[in-house]
């Protein structure tokens, strides 16, 4: 197996693994956050606006971790720096 196919294989594998493992934590975190927020809204419906806004901001913070993983996997697949380097080196 030459260098290029090793890089292609490793890239595909790493991209899948990145998004697979990277989305587990944020999913659990978002589940817990929504659970607590729903419980809080059920207890205090008057505070719904403030709670919903805080929930959205918090969800955005948690979600950004999964988005980082996604962006990295997209970079590995579509804009892989090593790929171009070895194509240039190989001629």
């Amino acid at each position, binding site marked *: 197996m030459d260098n290029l196919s090793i890089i292609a294989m490793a890239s595909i594998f790493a991209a899948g693994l990145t998004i697979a493992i990277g989305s587990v934590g944020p999913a659990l975190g978002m589940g817990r956050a929504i659970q607590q927020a729903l419980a809080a809204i059920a207890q205090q419906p008057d505070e719904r606006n403030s709670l919903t*806004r805080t929930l959205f901001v918090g969800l*955005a913070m948690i979600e*950004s971790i999964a*988005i980082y993983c*996604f*962006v990295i996997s997209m970079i590995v697949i*579509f804009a892989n720096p090593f790929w171009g380097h070895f194509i240039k080196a190989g001629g």
Partner: protein
Amino acid sequence: MEIVGINQISPDQVIIWSYGFITLNVTILYTWLVMAILVFVSWLATRNISSEMNVSRWQHFLEVVISIIRGEISEMTKKDADKYVPLIGTLFLFICTCNVLVIVPGFVAPTSSITTTASLALCVFIAVPYYGISRNGLFHYLKEYFQPNFIFFPFHVMGEISRTLALTVRLFGNIMSHEKVIGILLAVTPLLFPVVMQALGLLIGVIQAYIFAILSMVYIASAVSAEEEHHVHVEVKQKILQLNNFFKEEFLWII
């Protein structure tokens, strides 16, 4: 009609026209388009603006939008919302228009390019010290970086930089990922399912615009209100002291 291919991560790579070192790519073109739409609609709405009983439909629409934005901001800052409405409202309207216009065939959202989102996040990065200094003065603003003591200075600086990066990547990742998902679904299940995903994409786009605006407001509010919390603490301490004195006077004779 496909302008940005599935194997291109950013619409910056699609160059429509170039002359010398000036290049016009898809991102810039559609940013101009969105700006033109926003300016045109605002012009249309404020053309014959009136404070009479019967106002035009466009004026109603714009008043509803502005009052919602003002209400959200004044709920967060508790006062003087008008100072932040121009910046936050513009950010929200621009991102929201970009994300909603995705359903028009042939339109590429400028927010699916990391250069657009990075420049928007840089606006927030500059606006935070601007509002902080103009509200509290340079000394009090810089003092916040050394709270609770000077060891925390690098962490505050790192926090500023990393949250700007997070704003950038969050918006870019959401919109770009949605475009890619639609592209892949069109290849796998062509007819109906992509429509459902596009409807979901509208929701995601509006929520992301809301989150961008709210987060930038949170950052600005944290720089502005740091000094006021101090005043509040002093007031609370005075209140407690008064209560203490009151109880001493009232109950000392019992003891």
